[in-house]
Structures are given as structure tokens and as C-alpha cells.
């Protein structure tokens, strides 16, 4: 039976597989590893911090409840982003008093390809220091100011590293549309943030 330190050293794929075997310690460690990403992604998707913590917990609970339904552990990141995006869309529908449409079903766009998520190496020196609170606020303000479809696309691309194909699958759009949305989002952000580079 692995001990606490063993779980801390495991990769995401390994924790996913163990969680699917009802290893609750592995599930706890998996949640610990992804919760900050879920929070940060939602914080850039939402237009304000209202309900941010609630939605984060909602996503994590859905992850915990449905982890056994994930057929291919390799697709975990795309599956998690599917949950994040759907939870966000359901939240928007609730605000507009429309019924939620929750779908945990997710099919990996291409099962054979590797999903490469850039995870910064903790031991390497950062090229630049963390930016100031003010700068972070301005970046968040600029991203939150984007039209919704641009915002979702750029957040999934920049912060979750999804491919255009995966973003198209998650947002029910075409690859060409995703390409256009991302480039237009970048143009708008460039305009809004030119004083911060």
C-alpha cells in the first residue's frame, strides 16, 4: 500500500488510474495537484470573482464523482477541461435562468496523439520574476474583457495547453473558428496590454 510520500511523487496518469480503483488517498492527491489550475482557469474564464470558489469546488466534486467514467486516463487533462468549461457554461445558463445541460461524456479527439501539457520545472530558475499584483490584475481584467468565445478559447489554449482540435471539441466549434478566435483574442489583448511588456 503506497504511503503519503509515494502519492506525492506519482504522476497525474498514475493517480488517475489509482483513483479509478477507489484509492481515496490517490484521489485526494490528484485533487491537490489540479485544484490550483482549476481555480486559476475559472478565475480567467469568469467575469468576476463571484462564485469562483463555489465553482472550483463544484468542478472538483464532479471530477471525484466521475473519475471512473474516464475510459482513457491519458485524456484526463482534456476531460477535466471539458468539466471546467461545461460547469462554466451551466453557471452562465443559471444566471440567464436557463436549465443546465451537464455532460460528463468526453471523447479524446485523437487517442493516438500525446497530450503535452507544459508543467514548469520547479527546480529551474524562472526566466522572469512573478509579476506584480497590479500587472496580474490588468492581465485578468483584459482577459475578462474579451468576448466570451474568445476568452474561453484563449484560456484553454494559453493556460491549459489544449490543441485547437481539443478546444474545438470542448466548445463544439470548428478548428478554423478556434484559430480565428485565438488570434483575435491575442490582437485585442495586445492592444489592451501594450503598456505591460
Amino acid at each position, binding site marked *: 500500500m503506497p504511503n503519503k510520500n509515494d502519492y506525492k511523487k506519482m504522476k497525474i496518469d498514475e493517480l488517475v488510474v489509482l483513483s479509478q480503483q477507489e484509492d*481515496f488517498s490517490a*484521489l*485526494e*492527491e490528484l*485533487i*491537490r495537484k489540479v*485544484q*490550483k*489550475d482549476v*481555480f*486559476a482557469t475559472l*478565475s*480567467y474564464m469568469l467575469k468576476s470573482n463571484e462564485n469562483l*470558489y463555489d465553482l*472550483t*469546488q463544484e468542478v*472538483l*466534486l464532479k471530477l*471525484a*464523482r466521475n473519475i471512473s467514467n474516464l475510459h482513457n486516463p491519458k485524456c484526463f487533462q482534456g476531460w477535466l477541461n471539458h468539466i471546467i468549461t461545461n460547469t462554466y457554461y451551466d453557471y452562465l445558463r443559471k444566471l440567464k435562468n436557463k436549465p443546465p445541460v451537464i455532460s460528463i461524456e468526453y471523447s479524446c479527439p485523437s487517442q493516438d496523439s500525446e497530450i503535452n501539457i507544459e508543467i*514548469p520545472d520547479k527546480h529551474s530558475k524562472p*526566466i*522572469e520574476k*512573478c*509579476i506584480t*499584483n497590479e*500587472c*496580474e490584475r490588468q*492581465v*485578468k481584467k483584459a*482577459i475578462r474583457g474579451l468576448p466570451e468565445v474568445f476568452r474561453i478559447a484563449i484560456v484553454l*489554449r*494559453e*493556460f491549459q495547453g489544449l*490543441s*485547437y482540435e481539443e478546444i474545438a471539441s470542448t466548445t463544439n466549434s470548428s478548428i478554423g473558428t478556434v*484559430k*480565428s478566435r*485565438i*488570434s*483575435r483574442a*491575442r*490582437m485585442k*489583448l*495586445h492592444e489592451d*496590454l501594450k503598456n*505591460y*511588456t
Partner: protein
Amino acid sequence: MNIQFTCNQIESLIGYFIEGKLAPSLLEFFNQHLKKCPKCRKKVEQLQKVITKYAPENNPHESKPDKELIGNLSAYMDNELDTGENVKIKKMTILNPNARQKLESMYKFKKLMHNAYEKTKNDTKFDYSKSIVATLNEGQGYTTTYFRNIIILFVLLLIAVITGFIYLYF
């Protein structure tokens, strides 16, 4: 001295040729090869087309960002172009200072956004892992206990009914 360039050598000199910076002593041999090699000739023509399209003098409205250029640079940065397009854009950014500047600017913004995202992540102090797993287990426990109680009640009812029948008929 009779110099004959190979296609690989032409490939390495093509950029200088397009920019008009190829050493005069090599120009003659370069052109000689192009006369004999349709493949290299086609490569030069294709590259010249790309350069001409994106050359600053052919884009007088530079103050308005070229949407198609930005779109392609954006997809290039995300490694979402096919091999042919990838090579075209790479060569174009090498030869066109305007495109190169735009790409460098896009990389700077990418870095800025990532820094902001990492700061957001690092500033979070909560840990929901234990509470989420506890909620999951509570839900299962509740269901199991509820189900168990129903079964016990059902069995008791069955025993009562059977006892009643036995009492009535015997």
C-alpha cells in the same frame, strides 16, 4: 574552376539570394543551378511570392494589423500549422522584419499571460482535497445506510406477514 551547386547548397543560400545579398562570385553558379533544376527554381518562386505578399512596401496599411498574418503567426506559435505552412512562415519571419517583430511581440505577451496565471495559482492558499473526498464518502455512506435500513424494514415486514399467516392457519 567549375563549381556546381547541389540542391542542399542552394537551400542554404536561398535567403541571401532573395534578399539580394548573395556574394557576386556565387550568384553566377546559383543562377546556373536554377536554370538546370526546376525543383529549386520552384522553391525560389514560392518563397519570392510569400516575401512579396508580406513585404512592408506592399502593405501600406501597416497601422491596421494584417488579420491573416496575425492568424498565421498565432497558429505558428501554437504549432498548429502543417509542415509546409510552418516552413513558409518560419522563412518569412526570418526575412521580413515586420513579421519577425510581430511574432516576438506575441511571444512576449504569451510570457506575460503565463506569469499572471502562475501568480494567480501561487497566490491560492486553499486545499479542498480532504473535504471533496469526505463529501464523496459521506454520500456513499448515506446511501448505504439508507439502503440497509430499507432492507431491514422489508425483512421485518416479511417476517411479520409470514408469522401472521402461520398464526391464522395453525
